[in-house]
């Protein structure tokens, strides 16, 4: 198991957002977490990645207890994430966004005298090419369209060649074509790099097409997990989730 989550709990001012969530993911698996709005998906991501402190529970990553580690330490162990609401460096260029991630990943960030523009040019361009941003390299990232920003977000996460990648609604706000292109891209990269992928997504078609396993969250609790077929036919899931799906 590359990632094991045990009995996660988190409440905000008495409101229990995540209530005893446990699951494990094997190396190389493509998993998704689904659930209605407010189910607690993003909060689970926030607890795993050290964005929020948890109330109870444990997170084991690659055999290391990361429960109380700071976010940057967890990153350095090989876990990266993207954010539901785009989270980039708006007044830097697209190139600089991805290059910064590379600098950090390759341990060059504490270098004071090498001109930064000479570093990792090709690698950065290669990553931009992979996420379809090669033509926007010099654009201010904050002025990109929403879909491009989402792709950039993915590029930043991929720059560090993570073992585990957590994507929080990677296609939210994208058009149908953009969505299928992005999903195709994510699936391809995951296979090429042997990535372990955990993602959340509202688009059911996307979820059922690329997930190998699906975890269903409802009001902070996991109500079931299984293959797409098992989840699709589960009566509880139909009741709480699919019944009200868009």
């Amino acid at each position, binding site marked *: 198991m590359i990632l094991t989550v045990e009995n996660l709990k988190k409440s905000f001012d008495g409101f229990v957002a995540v209530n005893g969530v446990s699951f494990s993911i094997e190396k190389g698996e493509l998993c998704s977490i689904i659930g209605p709005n407010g189910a607690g998906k993003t909060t689970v991501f926030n607890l795993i*990645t050290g964005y929020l402190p948890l109330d109870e529970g444990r997170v084991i990553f690659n055999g290391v207890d990361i429960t109380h580690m700071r976010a940057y330490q967890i990153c350095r162990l090989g876990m990266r994430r993207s954010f539901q609401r785009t989270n980039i*460096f*708006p007044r830097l260029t697209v190139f600089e966004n991805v290059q910064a991630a590379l600098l*950090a990943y390759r341990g060059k960030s504490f270098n004071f005298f090498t001109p930064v523009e000479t570093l990792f040019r090709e690698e950065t361009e290669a990553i931009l090419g992979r996420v379809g941003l090669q033509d926007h390299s010099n654009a201010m990232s904050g002025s990109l369209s929403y879909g491009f920003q989402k792709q950039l977000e993915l590029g930043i996460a991929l720059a560090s060649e993570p073992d585990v990648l957590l994507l929080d609604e990677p296609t939210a706000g994208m058009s149908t074509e953009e969505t299928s292109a992005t999903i195709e891209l994510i699936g391809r990269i995951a296979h090429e790099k042997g990535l372990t992928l955990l993602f959340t997504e509202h688009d059911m078609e996307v979820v059922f097409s690329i997930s190998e396993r699906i975890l269903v969250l409802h009001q902070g609790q996991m109500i079931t997990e299984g293959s797409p077929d098992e989840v699709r036919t589960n009566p509880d899931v139909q009741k709480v989730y699919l019944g009200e799906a868009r």
Partner: protein
Amino acid sequence: MSKQDWFLIPIFLILCLVPLSGSRFYVFLATDILIFALFAVSLNLLLGYTGLVSFGHAAYFGIGAYACALLMRKASIVFPVSFVAAGLFGALAALIIGFFCVRLTKIYFAMLTLAFSQIVWAAAFKWNSLTGGDTGFIGVPFPQYLDSKTRYYYFTLAVVVVCLFIIRKVVNSPFGRILTTIRENSERTEFIGINVKFFQLVAFIISGFFSALAGALFGIFNHSVFPDFLFWPASAEVLIMTILGGMYSFFGPVVGAAVVLFLRMQITSYTQYWPLILGMILAVLLFFFPGGIVGFLQNRLTLLRGNR
């Protein structure tokens, strides 16, 4: 040196020629501007590059001024050693104060830097036996081999040019790039695997070092050191220089220092309301040219180029 830097050469040559004008006034003003240019650029490493508002930067400037003067006069340490030591004292103070400040964010960070600088000021004010208290520490001599206004000017020019060169290297390095990602989005920076607080602290220390060197230069230039050097209006003034000049460009704060000091020199001879006028200039600027003077000029330039 890149192509855009051609403009530095004539400026440097003009600066070299200032003493040949024979005007003591211009030599005096130019020395003053150089020192504050270094101070403002040091502050801007935090403000414009890292996105941290230090409201107490006069503390490091003042510590540098006192340290250099006291080491020379009271401990009879030769000037070059005292001078470098002054920078190190500034860095040490920044390490200690920064250690606490980087734990806070935004306005709380600014308030804590202010609080610490007031503590340093109170110490300088009250510690009569060491600092001379509110009468200040008077009679700091020029070092023997720099004992004229002109020589001291050239020394200042050399030090400032070297320091700006180093700081510029740093902001254009990977470390500098990471500082800008912290400014843009410190949360996201943490998630590319950067210990943000540590980087902020290192930036703080570097800034403290160069601010203290500026202070050391100024103490000797001024022949005396007063607690006023580290009082909060001094912190505000260097912030104003930086913002007025333009904090998103490397040389913006240099322009800001030049404009503020030049105007102050002119205006205080007509009226005692200089702070009022400075405040109004700043208010107008923040409303109409948020990028400062240099930001405004850069925009103009790109517009002109675009129109052609």
